[in-house]
């Protein structure tokens, strides 16, 4: 890619990433949440990879990393859900943290936690899909 593309992407990617975090953190207050924010975060990484390219070895290493992250994040979601069976009302997916006041950033009990982990999971999994497809393509051209 040309220098213009590289420089613009460099400037944009950070902002896109931050916006993704914003969408995830305000998931329980505004439209958006884990899935939408996760896709935005993955988008910022994909932008960088598209603009700068990546070595084949690097790609496979990144792919194993994202797979691990994805699995850890979704396991965390499951553990939070299962924690509801141990504390509080002892029900699967129970909201066992205090609900707080409507409209504040720290409120709605465990829902922001779900949003955060789902966001990580979605970002990692979309990145995994992207990297896997790129790796497949590289293997064909070799």
């Amino acid at each position, binding site marked *: 890619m040309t220098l213009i593309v590289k420089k613009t992407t460099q400037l944009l990617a950070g902002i896109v990433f931050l916006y993704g975090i914003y969408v995830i953190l305000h998931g329980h207050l505004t439209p958006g949440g884990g899935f939408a924010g996760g896709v935005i975060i993955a988008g910022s990484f994909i932008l960088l990879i598209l603009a700068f390219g990546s070595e084949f070895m690097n790609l496979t290493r990144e792919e194993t990393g994202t797979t*691990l992250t994805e699995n850890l994040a979704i*396991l965390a979601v499951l553990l939070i859900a299962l924690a509801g069976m141990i504390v509080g009302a002892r*029900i699967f997916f129970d909201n066992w943290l205090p609900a707080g006041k409507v409209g504040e950033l720290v409120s709605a009990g465990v829902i922001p936690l779900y949003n955060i982990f789902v966001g990580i999971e979605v970002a990692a999994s979309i990145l995994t899909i992207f990297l896997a497809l790129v790796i497949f393509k590289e293997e064909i051209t070799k």
Partner: protein
Amino acid sequence: MNPLIPLFIAVPLAGAFLTIILGRFLRDAGRYTGLLVLLCLAAVSIFAAATINGEVLAYKVGGWEPVNGIPIGIYMVMDNFTALVLCIINIVGFLALIYSVTYISQYTSENYFYSLFCLMVAGMNGVVLSGDLFNIFVFLEIASIASYALVAFGVEREQLEATFKYQVLGGLASLLILFGIGLIYWKAKTLNIADIKIAMGSNPDKIHYTVIQLLLLSGFGLKAAVIPFHAWLPDAHSSAPSPISAMLSGVLIKAAGIYVLIRIFFNMFIISSEIAVLITTLGALSMVIGVFLAIGQWDIKRLLAYHSISQMGYVILSVGIGMILLARGTKPEVATLAISGGIFHLINHAAFKSLLFLNAGAIEYRTGTRNLKEMGGLSGLMPATSSTSFIASMSISGIPPFNGFFSKLIIIIAAILGKFYLLALIAVIVSIITLASFLKFQRYAFYNKAVVGREQEIREVPFPMVFSMVILGLLCVLLSLLAIPQIRDMFLTPAIKVLTDPQLYTSTILGM
């Protein structure tokens, strides 16, 4: 039992994710996590089936209580029918996984196999347990996507082609189901199965109702490979690795197709005689066409796959007969008999068809071929495989004292008592053709003259594979005990009661 219900979904999901994480550090992690998870699930499902005792248990996820009598949360529902299907899923899954321990070691990246396997089991458990339509759809997709990947696990030419076909038709099926769900939500404004029955019950818009029924019938019919929608099944089931074929044929088409069809048509819709006749016709067609397509096959797994279509035809036929009788309102005891025959056959089919696929896998593992013409004389060389496959073959063709005989007998008796003489005749004829087809399989694979010069290489398969085949063979014999009235009253009759008496299901869930 009640607090244990979500574990059926949570435990295999956790197993699937843990497998990948632990697999980074331990090479064999998947094997042990997978076996442990499936062992727990099998134990819990047997416990559930033994203790449920005719109750309908509803678990409200997240503790969302109904508001003004309208259920707003996600419900997981467990009754006797659910418990039986859960037993099938988890026990067959456990045995298939033991079998895989040696079978799958010929492939690379074993851990992904175990992870996907756990995911598929989680999806099927979810389909069976969930009490609202949209969750059925979501779990159906989890199970299906895992199975798409598992069919293609060997990444050979045929597997890729089969999985593409399977995915396109499976995707079409999901769209039809989603479309049907949308149409239901449009009118009923609810997704809970029991609540839909109330909301649409009084006087439904006739055309709208029929369109929904046809959409859901074709969607789940595609998943269950009923005859006009069967194109994907022989390819997908014969190309997959053998333990996966056993899971797909033995469990997935039942949990994702037949179970949901039975559940929604008995517990959600008001049974109408037109739809009942249509379902019966589809069942009879599947039975006949499936067996005629099977008889010309020389590839073992393809032959077995076509027989799956035919045997599922029996289940659909008997359930359809039950629906016709219930819709007419005459002879309710014959309707009960027909449905119990269908569900009995469903359980039996899980035992013998997965056993047959495991046998086919064992033969392929040692001889390296699936073509019946290229094998022969294996009975002396592989005694355990030969004897278990003999049990399964006799069982599927309906020879006493094996389980297939009793369920087919019940279906035929019910058809005669309900005055469906033609259907009873067809069922008998199909059973005879099945016997012919399996005698061919037995003769060419095990008793024909041995292929020259290969005797030294071929010997019995390793112990884990023999173990699961022997246990399934024992199950084939033991399941015929379900025909004894006392035992039937313990397991089958309460399961039928939930279906024939929709009031029980609806009122328990809505708390009326």
